[in-house]
């Protein structure tokens, strides 16, 4: 196979790894308020890294596809800086707060509009709703084979070979292309993108296509929103921490040892 056409689905979300004190819940409005900058959902960064490695090995093209509300191209341009070739944003008020099914449907429409592809990569789950289903739903919608929880992905002729994490270790599976693979963190972190490279890209930004409902969906009735009955803060997890003091590590260690002695 000469050159591979990869689509990476990447969601933009508020950084899910901030301390819990930066997250609050507006019970009235049923909204989660995260005091954090937006990022690419972590597993989607892993998916992009997997895509870039495949491209480095065999050449090809990576298109990043992102659906969201007020998607910031600044955040998503990082994908270009890291090694993606094209970025497509999908944004429309009609696409806000969609359920997983409808998100997968809109993505499938966009993928049909893009046209030819060999491989679709998604993250194993998005870091905001932790749902973990859009990838597999998308494959069903497109009628292509899907493999989840990849820790390594290789292309061999017209097939994809995946090592996927299973409870007893890992399983090696293969499927014909086109196929969809959901990616787990074991593939490794997205490569480092230098600030200067990012700044350079932002100085001369190439236009990014933005697709809306009229470009993608004829039948808006098909789309369903998440029906939130209630949103509440989590139970309080705090405990009163007893700090062990001491002027040397050994002194602290001795005190900690006596604590364990009482426990044991």
């Amino acid at each position, binding site marked *: 196979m000469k050159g591979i056409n990869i689509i990476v689905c990447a969601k933009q979300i508020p950084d*899910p*790894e901030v*301390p819990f004190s930066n*997250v609050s*819940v507006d019970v009235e409005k049923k909204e*989660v308020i*995260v005091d954090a900058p937006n990022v690419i959902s972590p597993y989607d960064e892993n998916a992009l890294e997997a895509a870039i490695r495949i491209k480095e090995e065999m050449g090809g093209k990576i298109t990043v596809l992102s659906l969201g509300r007020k998607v910031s191209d600044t955040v998503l341009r990082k994908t270009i800086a890291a090694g993606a070739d094209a970025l497509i944003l999908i944004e429309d008020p009609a696409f806000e707060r969609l359920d997983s*099914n409808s998100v997968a449907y809109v993505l499938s429409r966009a993928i049909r509009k893009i046209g030819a592809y060999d491989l679709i990569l998604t993250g*194993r*789950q998005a*870091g*905001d709703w*932790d*749902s*973990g*289903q859009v990838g*597999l739903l998308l494959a*069903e*919608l497109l009628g292509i084979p*899907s*493999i*989840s929880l990849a820790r390594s992905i290789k292309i061999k002729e017209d097939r994809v*070979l995946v090592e996927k994490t*299973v409870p*007893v*270790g*890992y*399983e*090696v*599976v*293969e*499927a014909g292309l086109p196929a969809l693979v959901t990616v*787990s*963190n*074991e593939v*490794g972190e997205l490569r480092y993108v230098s600030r200067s490279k990012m700044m350079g890209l932002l100085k001369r930004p190439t236009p990014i296509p933005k697709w809306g409902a009229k470009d993608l969906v004829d039948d808006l009735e098909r789309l369903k929103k*998440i*029906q939130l*009955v*209630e*949103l*509440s803060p*989590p139970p309080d*997890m*705090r*405990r*009163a*921490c*007893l700090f*062990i003091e001491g002027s040397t*590590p050994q002194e*602290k*260690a*001795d005190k*900690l*040892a006596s604590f*364990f*002695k009482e*426990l*044991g």
Partner: protein
Amino acid sequence: MSELLLLVESKEGLLDKTTLELIRGGSELAKDLGIDAAAVVVGNETSPLAESVASYGLKKIYKLEHPLLKGFQPEAWAGALEWLARQITPRIFLISHSFVGKEVAPRLAYRLDTELTTDCLNLRIDPQDGLLIRTKPIYGGNAIAALKCAGLPQMVTVRKNAFEPMEKVTTKSDLVDMVPALDESIIKVKSLKTVKEDVVELDKANMVIAGGRGIVAKEDFEMLAALAQAMSKSQGKVMIGCSRPVVDKSWMSSDRQIGLTGSIIAPDTYIAIGISGAIQHLVGMIRSKKIIAINTDPGCNMFKVADVGVVEDYKALIPALVKKLEESA
């Protein structure tokens, strides 16, 4: 519209505890709705498992048998369950948020044209419309959402420990043999081999000593191993776990990862070394009886949820602690 159906899972041939939890949760929901609760066992030879699940008060056990259901192949399982759901049109379908559940449930939901909510902690029936109200943590556990979806069956995956496991009863469930119409052609993903690795089951430990990104060198996990060794003399079964970055670096296998996308455990004692306490980690260990945190940053989150904290570099503290424990043993 008929029963509540739940998917039975096994571990090394034995009934998995999460199935007993589903039976408890499912039986209560079925009672609220005045419908029967049933279970389905999938495989090429389902009798032993079906027999063991028949003692927990369910009305019926469907034995879904076919040669293609040997082992676990997601497409075959989804195909078989789709076939069964079309025969019996269950009203509610409960599946564990396990490896099998995460593979099967989304595919099945799509094929049955219904909507799935994953990783639920609590389920109840809305008395107004009879729909399932699905409670699930979002943003890693920073908020709890209760939602409703249309579609039948009402379908969810359920987090481990969401319900107490069911106890045995004296009556037996009816066993119903079912042979799904399955064809080799539905399997598009071919399994080439499965490589078994030493798998640790962290939920069997009395004490878990976990290292995070703060552990700067792979060799330093030997300090944790030495500590585990010293602790095992007084603390029962001691195992080593970790946070996700340690798995990302391939220093440990993913079965040792604790958290939202790893294991959810509740040992007697949990020692977090060089772990900051991100919410996705906390949900995996917050139910531990005692939490001890060792970290150089006095402001880190882990101290907020810990019972005992030591602000210290692990490189200095752990060897000193091991020495002291060994002296006083």
